């Protein structure tokens, strides 16, 4: 089973991203998935977590995610003391940032990848909603689902006009991460 933890602030769409990944994996990918928010009251702007579990077989395990394989951080100010708890050593962490070196240095036990999702979201969407930019980055970095399935999940979940913009964002962030790994590789 692969476990993904999403960090965002209430209203940024972290839970939506966790569901999009679940839809891509299950409805469009033939796998099984669970997606859920950190349980409790919801407040705009407050730090929130969301989770996606993906497996080839039916997922029976209903306990909390304690060994994340991937962590997506939509707002870098959320990386605070205690952040590393519940992340598997060697796991991949994707951060929305312009200065990934800072986090690569601070989190040596993990593979840290950066993408300037805020700028990308402003360019295409005109709003600093970074969930789909980070979603595309995760899809590229992880291969958990195909780009086609990710695009299909957005078309399943969003109204056509909004879906068009978000598909563009996902395709672009997917490309950015792939270019990065080509340069590194």
């Amino acid at each position, binding site marked *: 089973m692969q476990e993904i933890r999403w960090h965002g602030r209430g209203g940024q769409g972290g839970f939506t991203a966790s*569901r999009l990944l*679940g*839809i891509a994996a*299950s*409805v469009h990918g033939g796998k*099984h*998935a*669970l*997606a*859920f*928010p950190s*349980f*409790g*009251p919801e407040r705009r702007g407050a730090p929130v977590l969301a989770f996606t579990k993906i497996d080839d077989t039916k*997922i*029976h*395990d*209903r*306990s*909390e995610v*304690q060994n994340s394989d991937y962590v997506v951080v939509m707002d870098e100010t959320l990386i605070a003391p205690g952040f590393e708890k519940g992340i598997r050593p060697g796991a991949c962490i994707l951060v929305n940032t312009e200065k990934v070196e800072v986090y690569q240095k601070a989190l040596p036990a993990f593979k840290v990848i950066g993408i300037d999702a805020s700028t990308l979201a402003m360019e295409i969407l005109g709003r600093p909603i970074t969930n789909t930019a980070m979603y595309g980055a995760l899809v590229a970095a992880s291969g958990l689902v195909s780009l086609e399935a990710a695009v299909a999940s957005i078309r399943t979940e969003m109204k056509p006009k909004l879906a068009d913009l978000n598909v563009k964002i996902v395709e672009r962030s997917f490309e950015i991460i792939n270019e990065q790994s080509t340069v590194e590789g």
Partner: protein
Amino acid sequence: MKTNKIFISGDEAVAQGVKLCRPHVIAAYPITPQTITVERLSEMVEAGEMDGIYMHVESEHSAISATMGASAVGARTFTASSSQGLLYMAEGLHYCSGGRWPVVMMNANRSVALPWSIYGDQRDSLSLLDCGWIQVYVEDAQEALDMMIQAYKIAEHKDVLTPMMVNLDGFILTHTYELVDIPEQKMVDEFLPVFETPNKMSFEEPKNLGFSSKPDDNTEFKYQQNEAMFKAIDVIRDVDQEFAEKFGRKYYDMVEEYRCDDAEVVLVALGSVCGTIRVVVDKMRAAGKKVGLLKIRYMRPFPETEVKDLARRVHAIGVIDKDISFGYEGTVYTNVNSAISKIDKYVYKSNFVGGLGGRDITKEEIEEMFEKLFFGVKNKSEEKVEFFSLNVESND
């Protein structure tokens, strides 16, 4: 078989299930974590996707009163609640079962105050076991949807005519999204007959809704209610079988045994934690440990035969309770223990109280419970009620 699978939450799955049953009247008051269910139903009625009436009542007490009244004139009815809301309904719950109105309710299992908590446990519904409702507990969103369809068929059966509460764990099921197969309306229509009740009140046949009784006939009313609950066991079995033949999904009626055939030690539980236990059972089985799970689906009527049958075959039974009856033990344990006491064999037993107010029950903890049961059998340990993963020192 044609499938229509969508990625939805437990709350939404319940709403989809209810919609397929075509209730005439829905009356409910929103409460976390049930809210999404009643919001969706309200939207479906508003959009004309459902023919029923949605009554926006001002409280849970009114919700149960309205559904009872509607049921009395022959309407198929639905309500939903949770925690404090369910407790606010408590007076009406007894009225409803005594009146033999087959109202179907979804309850999102949530802790009860104080301390105030919106998180999940099963203290709300388990504290109402004696109110005369059939109580079933589900493990995932698909089972939640399917049980809405089964619930009407069971509750409205002429031999049963008893209201039914479908319980799903707050947040763990209500707010978790997963792939759910939505049955075709045509198939549900074929499966679920139109509601007909011999008790129907109408202008042609006026009846007394809030009838009274005297000492010389009250016992007979209660005897018949109890008989109907026992008759429900056969109906539950038949309906599950018929459902499996029609929709291809079987829930093993009163209980489900998971890898119990040659098990030495078994955990008994309700609801979503059963899924996590399955994972631990598989892991321990792979290591050669003979463990199993008994998933209790129905708490009322209680699966006494099934519990006794299992107890005859195993050395130890542990019961996980997401509740505690203060001053004694967990309510599920009390019920399981009562059944076991009726067989002529000693079985080591233990009660694990956990998952209160939303606390996670981890795979490691479940494995520890199994190990404690093995240890208890081997060392003839004292049987006790144990609060699991306690952060204060226990007095034991």
